[in-house]
């Protein structure tokens, strides 16, 4: 469901052939009919099956790894341990962050001496069948010497706590300083201080990790894998000590990523084994492997201290964020940057102090997950906004209104986002769409409603630099080819590129064929992450298409004796007004260009604006290219006896800049609502001394269709984003505000706030009992 947009007068006259319409994605039919091959569908003759041997303790010295018995098993072909690595210090860590305290926290590819988390890879087995590989796995004997571990980020900071790496457990520290916080608190009539806790979260994509690697006839290592980033071929080559051009990653449609398929240890294992055995190798994770095989969302403890005047202005904000990075750094440095930048939310806070730290523990390591630290901050600041509103006796929305950032205002880092800030419209629309309140009939049921707004970046961190390429060409029959290395992780990424080319070149979506995700043959487009793909590769595709368009129009203008601006491309034809004699098929024009040596194809690159590092003391500068703003509103019912929660209404209102495919935008909003609902209510990764106690989908409880209500999407289009046609991003933004909206609704229903997510029935019952006594 979705409601249409109020268009402001400046942009109301833009007319598109297909942009913004709810089109059937180009990848839909194959997926619905089951004909789309995923990485796991590829097989080769003589293929071996891999299995990763993992530690069964979280903190220990590895004294000995005994592989004899496993090697002796019939059908076992090869076993790789740390001793067999060409470069023992090789690491699957990607060095793209700044702000790590030490560079000495890289995870080893395979453990040689020190085990730091439960499930850490010790060896890789290659066998003739996956059954034999699994059997061999159980035969590998590891001798451990226990080392005292630390499993709580606050304990990890205490003097005398076990140290995971180096000298202390602080892995990353990010700071933001703006204005005069002490003076701001002086000006406050009231100070509200609360601490919010957010949990681990598992990506739980439909498709657990899988891939196939082989060495081809020219000696190039080919890897067919489900990955968000095919440009890890460089890292893989570095580990193998090969030139970068000797490793090729070919993607496939990916069955979900959410940040969980950005790592590349498993591709490195496959490449090493393919080289070592000379045979194709396949590595498929079971769901259990997947639970221990990739980093999780950072749990955070967020302390918010807000100074507010009695008429409702925020005068100062002091935020302290402590994140559990688990045993290794991975992307923690950037995740904490996102959390720090997002800390005040979409509000104007002149006196601001943020300290965000990631601390090492012997828990599962944490890394990228949809929202990337900013959504944890949102979970805290939007609950805090309700608490502050209550403390000053204001309506939560009226209080927010007084403090919203407006278009043109600088955010926490002093940067002025180029796009519009339509928070107020989004909040108002979402709230209004809740309609009349559901009145409970049963005495044990209470209902409540809540809203949350957010600010979430789209596009990669600006100081890292970012480019993306796409190639577009027009065929002699008017069909269009797009080639781009983009990884489609299920969001309709390739379909949107096809649509952009179709829009610019005046053809239908069905007329475009897209070749994707091959690090050797398709132009490199960067990682599908950070809500960057549409804005980066979309712009590259648009740029390429426009270059072709302008050459085609030029040639057509000569043909028809008119000005290029008088020529139209529409429905596969080239037209001048409605003069029938001045019209031809697009393909014929492409052929004319060919004869004249005018290129009907183009390779284009889009480059994001690069910025300096943020100031390390004040955090001032440009962190991201731009931000998406929006809101989510929720109505719940709560069973006050059992603590069960029902989501009655779930409404997302987002300014996406410009919809490319409206249906795909709705998919993101609905998926974000589901993903955020699980985070708020039921998904729990319970660890006991680093060991996951909820390692399957029967214990890790994501909402099912039975748990979801129909999600309503309200799509606003400010046409102000830095993406193609003014698009912003919606992938990550869609999840941001869901959990705090649910938390605020539950608080509204039961009259007491629970400061720790998820809001399980048991926590609700306990809170109600505490309230009674």
């Amino acid at each position, binding site marked *: 469901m979705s409601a249409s947009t109020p268009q402001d007068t400046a942009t109301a006259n833009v007319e598109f052939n297909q942009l913004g319409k709810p089109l059937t994605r180009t990848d839909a039919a194959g997926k619905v009919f089951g004909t789309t091959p995923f990485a796991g569908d590829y097989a080769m003759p003589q293929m071996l099956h891999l299995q990763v041997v993992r530690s069964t303790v979280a903190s220990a010295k590895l004294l000995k790894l005994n592989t004899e018995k496993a090697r002796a098993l019939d059908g076992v072909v090869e076993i790789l341990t740390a001793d067999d690595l060409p470069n023992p210090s090789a690491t699957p860590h990607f060095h793209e962050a700044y702000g790590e305290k030490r560079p000495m926290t890289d995870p080893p590819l395979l453990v040689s001496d020190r085990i730091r988390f439960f499930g850490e890879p010790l060896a890789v087995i290659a066998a003739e069948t996956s*059954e034999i590989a*699994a059997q061999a796995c159980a035969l590998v004997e590891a001798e451990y010497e226990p080392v005292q571990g630390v499993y709580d980020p606050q304990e990890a900071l205490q003097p005398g706590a076990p140290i995971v790496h180096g000298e202390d457990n602080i892995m990353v520290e990010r700071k933001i300083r703006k204005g005069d916080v002490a003076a701001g608190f002086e000006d406050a009539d009231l100070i509200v201080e609360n601490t919010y806790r957010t949990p681990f979260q598992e990506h739980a994509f439909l498709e657990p990790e899988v891939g196939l690697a082989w060495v081809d006839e020219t000696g190039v290592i080919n890897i067919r894998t489900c990955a968000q980033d095919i440009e890890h071929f460089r890292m893989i080559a570095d580990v193998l000590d090969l030139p970068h051009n000797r490793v090729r990653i070919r993607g496939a449609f990916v069955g979900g990523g959410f940040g969980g398929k950005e790592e590349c240890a498993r591709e490195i294992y496959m490449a090493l084994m393919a080289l070592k055995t000379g045979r194709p190798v396949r590595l498929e994770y*079971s769901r259990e492997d997947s639970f221990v095989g990739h980093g999780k969302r950072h749990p955070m403890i967020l302390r918010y201290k807000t100074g507010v005047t009695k008429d409702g202005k925020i005068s100062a904000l002091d935020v302290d964020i402590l994140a559990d990075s688990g045993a290794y750094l991975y992307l923690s440095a950037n995740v904490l940057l996102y959390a720090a930048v997002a800390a005040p939310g979409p509000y104007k806070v002149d006196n601001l102090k943020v300290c965000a730290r990631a601390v090492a523990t012997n828990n599962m390591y944490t890394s990228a997950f949809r929202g990337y630290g900013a959504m944890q901050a949102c979970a805290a600041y939007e609950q805090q906004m309700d608490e502050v509103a209550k403390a000053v006796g204001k309506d939560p929305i009226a209080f927010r209104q007084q403090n919203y950032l407006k278009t043109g205002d600088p955010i926490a880092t002093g940067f002025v986002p180029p796009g519009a800030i339509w928070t107020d419209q989004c909040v108002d629309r979402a709230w209004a769409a809740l309609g009349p309140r559901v009145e409970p009939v049963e005495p*044990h049921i209470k209902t409540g409603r809540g809203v949350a707004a957010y600010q979430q970046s789209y596009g990669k961190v600006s100081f890292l630099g970012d480019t993306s390429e796409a190639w577009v060409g027009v065929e002699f029959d008017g069909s269009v080819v797009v080639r781009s290395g983009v990884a489609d992780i299920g969001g309709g990424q390739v379909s949107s590129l096809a649509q952009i080319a179709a829009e610019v070149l005046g053809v239908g979506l069905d007329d475009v064929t897209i070749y994707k995700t091959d690090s050797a043959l398709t132009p490199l487009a960067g990682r599908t992450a950070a809500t960057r793909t549409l804005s980066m590769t979309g712009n590259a595709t648009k740029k390429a298409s426009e270059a072709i368009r302008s050459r085609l129009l030029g040639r057509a203008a000569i043909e028809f004796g008119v000005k290029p601006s008088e020529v139209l491309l529409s429905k596969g034809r080239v037209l001048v007004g409605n003069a029938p004699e001045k019209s031809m098929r697009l393909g014929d024009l492409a052929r004319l260009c060919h004869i004249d040596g005018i290129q009907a194809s183009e390779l284009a690159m889009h480059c994001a604006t690069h910025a300096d590092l943020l100031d390390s003391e004040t955090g001032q500068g440009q962190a991201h290219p731009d931000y998406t703003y929006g809101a989510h509103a929720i109505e719940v019912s709560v069973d006050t*006896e*059992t*603590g*069960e929660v029902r989501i009655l209404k779930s409404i997302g209102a987002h300014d996406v800049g410009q919809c490319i495919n409206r249906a795909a935008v709705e998919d993101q909003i609905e998926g974000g609502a589901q993903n955020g609902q699980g985070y708020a209510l*039921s998904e*729990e990764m*319970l660890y006991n001394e680093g060991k996951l*106690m*909820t390692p399957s989908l*029967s*214990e890790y*409880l994501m*909402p*099912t*269709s*039975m*748990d979801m209500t129909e999600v309503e999407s309200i799509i606003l289009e400010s046409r102000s984003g830095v993406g193609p046609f003014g698009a912003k991003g919606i992938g990550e933004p869609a999840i941001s505000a869901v959990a705090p909206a649910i938390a605020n609704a539950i608080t509204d229903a039961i009259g007491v706030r629970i400061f720790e997510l998820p809001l*399980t*029935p*048991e926590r609700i*019952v*306990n809170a109600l009992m505490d309230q009674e006594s």
Partner: protein
Amino acid sequence: MSCAYDLKVPISLQNALDLLSDAQSMPLAGGTNLLVEIRSGKERPQRLVALDRIEGLAGIDINSETITIGARATVGDLLRSTELAKAAPSLVKAAGVFAGQMVRNAGTIGGNIACASPAADLVPPLMSLDAQVTLQSSSGSRVVALDEYYQGYKQDVRRPDELVTQISMPRLPDQTHNRFYKLARRRGDAITVVGLAVTLTVSDGVCRKARIAMGAVAPCVIRARNAEALLEGNVFDAAMIETAAAQAAAECAPIDDVRASAQYRRHCVRKLTRRLVAEAWNDLEAKVEADV
């Protein structure tokens, strides 16, 4: 993770029972429990005896005295029987909140009973309906009351060579209310945190018979016999219902696990017993008034 086994697909019950007299054999009904256990290595049978080709094992028969359900009836079969919905409402309610569509298509009532899980959803309703289980082996058959069938965590009186062939229960008298509530951490595909079934028969304003069966709050599904005794022979009032609910909570023996703590489960047994008994009582009162 995997295991090789021999699969037998007998077409007669006798044939199945003969195969099961071999100690290495296990019955395979819908497989929705067994295959999960095999995958995780908790069960390693050498031979599986599939029950799905055996005639006459899946019927639902309801006459004026008795309800009889074949062990091979799937959860979906229970849901589709409109007659059963009237005759045994709590059972059909439990079938409706059972797993998800795919598992309901395959999972059977016999498998649900025989897996002996404390969280098996069909068992509390059946127990509250005084169900009996027919066990058959190549050497004969016997009938066991469901409330005497379980002996502890995943322990039952069934010998490995015996099959559950049918489940039967008496028709409910008039003026009887029969309810089930599944408390779980989500609405689809969830393992029960507390399953509660209540059957109350009232005449002349007096509770003639009470059955309260509790799932997932003890090593096996149990009845709250003391709470039942408090209700039976009495006229209902709010205080008495509250006392009986507290008694049911005292009778259960829950544990802490990843889904919930023992304390929470006990709390919910109390609240839900009170709720279900009160609802049944209110409905019956309303019904008496309507009859007048």
